[in-house]
């Protein structure tokens, strides 16, 4: 039991990761794929942030009376990764908009049929 509760952050990460990855692979709708990709990325953000946590630690700002600080480095790294994630999502959505405009659909199998029926 300790194994499950003591590492609950990792279980959350693993579940989110699998949900995200499964959505990317199994869904034919291009927007749903992006949603899956986002869940997948967010699970990694959780992984990093929970790595940086120190039990009982305060935010890493020097203040009086605070002795234990959380590790700020994973947070900084994940700030960068979040920005990358935002950029990826925006670009992916822009592509979906253009795909919808040219194909008239955002279902993967229909796009495939349109490209190969010529």
């Amino acid at each position, binding site marked *: 039991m300790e194994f499950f509760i003591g590492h609950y952050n990792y279980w959350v990460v693993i579940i989110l990761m699998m949900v995200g*990855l499964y959505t*990317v692979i199994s869904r034919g709708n*291009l927007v749903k*794929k992006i949603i899956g*990709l986002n869940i*997948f*990325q967010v699970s*990694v953000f959780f*992984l*990093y942030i929970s*790595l940086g946590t120190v039990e009982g630690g305060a935010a890493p700002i020097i203040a009086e009376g605070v002795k234990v600080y959380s590790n700020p*480095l*994973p947070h900084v*790294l994940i700030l*960068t*990764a979040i920005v*990358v994630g935002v*950029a*990826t999502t925006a*670009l*992916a959505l822009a*592509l*979906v908009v*253009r*795909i919808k405009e*040219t*194909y008239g659909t955002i279902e993967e199998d229909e*796009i495939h049929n349109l*490209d190969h029926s010529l």
Partner: protein
Amino acid sequence: MGNHISLLLVIVPLIAAPLVAVLPRGRLPWAASFFVSVVCAVFAGIQLWSVLQGGVISYELGGWAPPWGIEYRIDAVNAFVALIVAVIAALTLPYALHSVEREIPEEKIPTFYSALLLCLTGLLGITQTGDIFNVFVFLEISSLSSYALISLGKSRQAFTSSYQYLIMGTIGATFYLIGVGLLYSQTGTLNMQDMANILPSVLHLNTVETGFTFIMVGIALKLALFPLHLWLPNAYTYAPSVVTVFLAATATKVAVYVMLRILFTVFPQTFTIATPADELFIVAGMAGVIIASVYAIYQKNIKRLLAYSSVAQIGYMVLGIGFATATGLMATLIHLFNHALMKGALFMAIGAIIYRIDSCRLDQIHGLGRAMPWTFGAIVLGGLSLIGVPGTAGFISKWYLVTAALEQSAWLPVAVILIGSLLAVVYMGKLIEALYFKPVTDNRKVVTEAPLMLLMPTWCLVLANIYFGLDTDLTVGVAEQAAAILGGMKP
């Protein structure tokens, strides 16, 4: 100034990219990008020279000493890869002028060059940095800009193939990120050199092995290692010609470099050899060489044909990594350089054909070789180099690869390399047959030779293919030094 060069190599295109985006339409964005790429090529040349003379260059960003700050750490390996990227960029840009004006809508041209420079920034950044997380950031800079560049292709499939690449590429990059996180949790550092010092004491942990696996799968997706190559043929086929030239000659090469770094600098040799990674690389490399070459034979689109051939060539490079010997790594590095030369030349020549007839289907190019003799010549010589005929650069890389395989008495890889070359004869032969020996299609308008601005960079690369097939001092010399740095201790 001297020690700032390794930094300026990344910063100059980074500053230029947003400036180019706001320049007025016309030829100014092109001129600025061309200037920047030449500056980068010169810097990369100076950097390689000073590394070969004086050893490792270390540059601390922001004055924070490593391992706390980000360090740019340049030895013969990255200086060599950076030179390849920068030189290819400097040759691609003169080629881009006419090709881009033909293929990209006018209002998008400044943004196009801006994205191209960002892609260059990302690729050069990956080669320069000595920080494992920084690699991820630069990887995403180059990937995001290449998704945008690919989607600018003319046909509607450009959007879907760019989307496909985006999904696969992001999964790959996120896998890499997971791996880095797991390694960081056990070593507490992100500096490659520092991590290499700490890792031996924590190697027995499952976390480290898991992190290693995540990183390897992530990079294998990025470098389109068979069977994770599915994004590559579409992306290369539907991208604008210039983008195909640039990405085919640089992007996968940089991913191979990252893989070499992680396998041989960050992780100790003993670990890499103890894992099944090297055997897996040999198997995936051999499968890639054979299967992708067979696929290439059946393609009806010449860009897609060459794209599958690229997957096969990546197989050769990964074979060299799999041997994990000094000769094997040398072969990988030499092929990295030579493949950039030959695929650059071939895709440039195909781009010239597209410039003239606006199609890259095999049944539309019949007899074109007679109308475009110089383009045809470039394809023939590039193809010979791809096959590995003695006297061309391709021969040198295959020679070292076969030597590395023979050293290990690995007969199957030797056979695969030879069969792969024979298959290359078949698919290049198909291309040349269509270009020269098939009768001209009747309903085609008269085609003339491609403009000089397209031919000159193409022939620069073609002549380089021949030069580096005869004079191997630079390639083999540098690769030898680089392989010595990476190690490759396996007897």
